[in-house]
């Protein structure tokens, strides 16, 4: 065992939706499942984060909300705090998922083409390798979308001299960067290019029944006008969402 997958439970029925996901993840990551019941008056988030740190958690799997109160961006108060403060990847499980068995065959991976996002995918790599899951890399392009300013970013080419050559080679280049920087296996990847507003397009995709896990890479900032995709997807998704924070140390050489 190389760590724990922490499953915070608050005694509610909804919270138990996280359990089958956590158990499967723990198995895939050679980790143990650690359920955690945090009782008031202790701040639940503080307790969860304390345990995650001291038990070397490789992930926290938590129901995104267990009640109607205090839900912001699809997350309850505890999940919201975890999102901002977690030292490890988080998996939010929609309460409506119930306790049905979870499998991991298809991962949906929105990718904006920036190196920082690709580097962060290294956190996903062990899981992806172990499952051999198909990873659908979603790149949303279109009008009104700025070219990422980050050096080394790749997005759909503005110019296509000869599409019969350009698109196949660009697709290969795009996926190869994801695979290489994110330590993922190229054959597991396939590209799905969407046209439109990124948050909207990804939110729609997150409701597809064949998606087992949606992986979002996040810069860690929730101020207004930021994290639009995260906010929208967490509200709309029907599948578990893994949130990976960009680690400045791992972004680039």
């Amino acid at each position, binding site marked *: 065992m190389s760590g724990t997958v922490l499953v915070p439970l608050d005694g509610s029925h909804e919270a138990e939706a996280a359990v089958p996901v956590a158990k499967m993840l723990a198995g895939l990551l050679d980790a143990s499942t650690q359920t955690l019941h945090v009782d008031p008056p202790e701040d639940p988030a503080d307790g969860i984060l304390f345990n995650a740190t001291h038990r070397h958690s490789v992930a926290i799997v938590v129901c995104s909300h267990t009640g109607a109160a205090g839900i912001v961006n699809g997350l309850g108060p505890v999940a919201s705090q975890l999102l901002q403060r977690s030292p490890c990847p988080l998996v939010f499980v929609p309460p409506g998922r119930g306790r049905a068995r979870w499998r991991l065959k298809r991962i949906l991976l929105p990718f904006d083409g920036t190196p920082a996002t690709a580097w962060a995918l290294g956190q996903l790599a062990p899981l992806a390798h172990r499952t051999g899951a198909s990873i659908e890399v979603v790149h949303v392009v*279109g009008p009104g979308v700025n070219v990422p300013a980050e050096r080394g970013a790749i997005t759909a080419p503005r110019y296509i001299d000869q599409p*019969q*050559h350009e698109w196949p080679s660009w697709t290969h280049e795009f996926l190869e960067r994801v695979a290489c*920087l994110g330590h993922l296996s190229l054959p597991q990847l396939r590209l799905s290019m969407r046209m439109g507003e990124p948050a909207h397009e990804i939110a729609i995709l997150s409701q597809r029944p064949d998606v087992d896990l949606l992986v979002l890479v996040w810069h860690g900032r929730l101020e207004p006008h930021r994290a639009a995709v995260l906010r929208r997807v967490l509200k709309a998704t029907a599948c578990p969402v893994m949130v990976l924070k960009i680690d400045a140390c791992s972004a680039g050489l």
Partner: protein
Amino acid sequence: MLPAEDWLNRRYQIIAFDWDGTAVAGRLEDTTRLRGPLERLLVSGVTAVIVTGTKVATIDGQIASTLPAFAKSNLYVSSNRGSEIYGFPAPDGRPLLLHRRVATPEEDRVLTEVAETLRRQIVERTGLDLQVIYDRLNRRKVDLIPIPAWADPPKAAMPRLRAVVEQRLQNAGLARGLTEAMELAAHLVAERGLDLRITSDVKHIEIGLTDKADAMRWLLANVAWPRGISIKDILVLGDEFGPTGASLGSDARMMVPELRGATFVSVGSEPEGVPATVIHVGGGPARFREILSRQAALWPLELPASPSVAQDWRLVEEGLDLPREHEIESLFAVSNGYFGTRAALPERTRLSAPGTVVAGVFTRKSHVGAIPELAHVWQWENLRVLVGGQPLDAEHGSIGHRRILDMRNGILWRQWEHRDAAGRITRIDGLWFASQTNRHMGLASISIAALNHASLVRLESVLPHGVEPVGANGILTFSQRPPGAEVALAFAVADRVIAQDGTIVAAQVHGAHECTLVSWDFHAALGCTHRFERMMAVATSRESERPHDEAVQIVSDAQARGMEHEVRTHTAAWERNWQEMDLEIVGDHHAQRAVRFAMFHLVSAANPQNERVSIGARSLSGGGYKGHIFWDTEIYMLPFFLLTNPTVARALLMYRYHTLRAARAKAAALGLRGALYAWESADTGEEVTPPLLLGPDGLVVPVYSRDQEHHISADVAYGVWSYWRATLDERFLQDAGAEIVFETARFWASRVAHQSDGLFHILGVVGPDEYHDSVDDNAYTNVMAQWNLERGAELARFAEHRWPRWWREISARLNLAPHEPDRWAEIAAAMYTGFDPASGLIEQFRGFFALDEVDLQALEPRTAPVDMILGRERTRRSQAVKQADVVLLLYLLWDRFPSGVHETNFRYYEPRTAHGSSLSPSIYALVAARLGLMDKAEQYFRQAADIDLANNMGNSGGGVHAAALGGLWQSVVFGFAGLWTDGDQPRVMPHLPAQWSRVRFAIRWRKERLPMEMGLPRAASGWSELREATP
């Protein structure tokens, strides 16, 4: 082991040494181990003087001929006991007599008299059989022991020889043996009052006009003093400074008074001691080599060149930005028109896409529908460095990493410092280039220095399976035939690892099933440098019946010349290139560098010596577009070559001539006559455009360009005509060009449709604006076809009048009916052009004006091409234009349209053009500049300049955009500089950006080189004859 004495730890500028007994034990000895240190010293600038009694041919055969020519300019040989001095000047490094002492007839007579008298006197006293040897320059030798057993005694046998000679003389009555014989000789010379030199090597007594002292005096007078070399910077080595019985040792003659203060060292046994000023170390030739190595090690092992420092001449990539690695590999690629190699790091990274391609060598996969693509061949630049068993990895541990593309010299540089987990810092500097002097060759030179450690270092390079050694110089050779390729390739490679002391590190060749590993192991001492050198040659069965032999010969010749020579001649070739073509923009570094980058890659892609290949859309810098050739070559790249190097332009057009057969076949397959060039072609000229496209949205659509983009035939004819006008090369026109013009005109004559309006139309085409397929009367296509028909008719009339015999021959060969040219003219005259004289607008194709207007600006910012955003069908229904179409036509055929039409159409089409192609911005810049719309011109120029340098297409990883580079050059020359070549005499009307204070370049025009310069003070608006601008 030598002691660490002061004399040995000083660097000497001149090293003079005796040969036999000092440098070698005998004249048949292998000098491999001596060669390395001696070459290192020579290349470092040290003068070496070999002082010998023998002939220069002996020294040349034993050592000099084995040294690279470049190294030998500092080598001298004093032969025949100081009577001759030879040098080995560049370029061939063969012995050249610099000085010879010529005996007068009287001196010859006296030498013979003295030798004969000496022989007679000794014979009279001893009765021995002695012989006089006459065939020596300026001397005679009395052989004291002329018996077969002692015919050619080695130095090692000297003590025994001395004993035998002494015994022979003493037993025969000369009581004091050799000493007494020498005294007799000295007496004979003295009583004649002559200045003759008497020496002995024990076997002989030599009487001559010169000795080693003359060699040293020549050296002082002709090398040391003119170069200001101090006497204390001279090291003299020998093995016989001490007395040899009767006389001083022969090397003592080198101790002339003028050399007081020099260092004299003896490696001989010196049984009777040495003079006080001589340092005796003994040890013979082995010790001599050790001294030479120690001296060599005192000189830094530098690379044979250094990168340009001027910012306008280089691209610099600091650090390693892994996501951009493919792009950097393209931008920094080195090629020479014969082959190209991407700038992948030699040890590779996770995102490396290395590649070496040979122009025109295509591979064909076996599956149905496979498209030929440039074959990837052996990646000759691969090299791995392991320190203490750990491979150096640029992704981890780099503490400094820089790549420089030195465009001035055509060299890729890398400067890298790496610290491994153990804290060992290793510095690696390297250069790579594709030779401009022999296009078959790629060369690399890499230095490896241990900065803070002493470690075992291993270099490894992978070669294909089946490597064979050739000859004795370490050349390896192997063959490759890419799958489905028509041609076979042969490689030869010569590697060498040199230590700082000149020692050559032995290579280990490990054969394996799928590849061959060559490795070199050495101990890197603290602060010391080793240098890896690779000379690679590739030849193909296309140009040689024996490519293997050719590759080996090329590498063998290069070995003889040396790496320094190859670097020097390569950079000199680039210097000549730049002298011919450079375009200077004063006042705008960004523009200057961008234009030089364009010219660098265009020249790198071209091979004037091969008319069977052309330049692919991504040149030789990447595998994008599978190496296929498009209209890009004639419309976008050719003008640069036309006006800077017409030989290249001719070769590119000859490729179209050689592929005419395939063009005829394509036309015939459509039921048409003449020549329809393939939209994409490879080696044969057959159509190789993929028929279908799989888009990123998962939809499969036909590639209409394949079957409908017919304007390429007129584009090729336009290239031919442009060449003819720029060169008046009648031979080309008769041999090839005219046939292209006739066959393309004939194609258009069969392609047009005569309609009820009495005009000729061209239906169902794709123009340069590829957003709209299956359109009728694309203006670019129609007007270019019209022009093509006119030129066909004009050329026919011209030829009939000027070259009647030739005209009859080609008419017969092409089965040209007498009325055909007239028919071409009739069709041209009645061609529908889409031009509306009332509005001045040219409709891009019939029905274009009725299409939906689209506000392209409203789509900004955007991260996708416009046709993807709008969707295929909406794009087809809209006025969104992919790239310059009508505007390109206006540029190419400017004078066909009335004044004012250009600006009217520019202003109409500019907001409708999405610039969805890299070919577009440069043409808009050009036309805007001609119209004086400077804001637009500068905006589009910057856009064009950044296509590769800023990778704003997101796809430079597949290679640089060669057509965009050609377009950029055209935008400066034909746009901002305002060059017009429509008349017999070029003229200019510049419109320079405010920031550009001056523009200078030269063009080739009808065998003349016309330099031109423009700028401040700003030329008044209006035309200037080019000659007026000529300095």
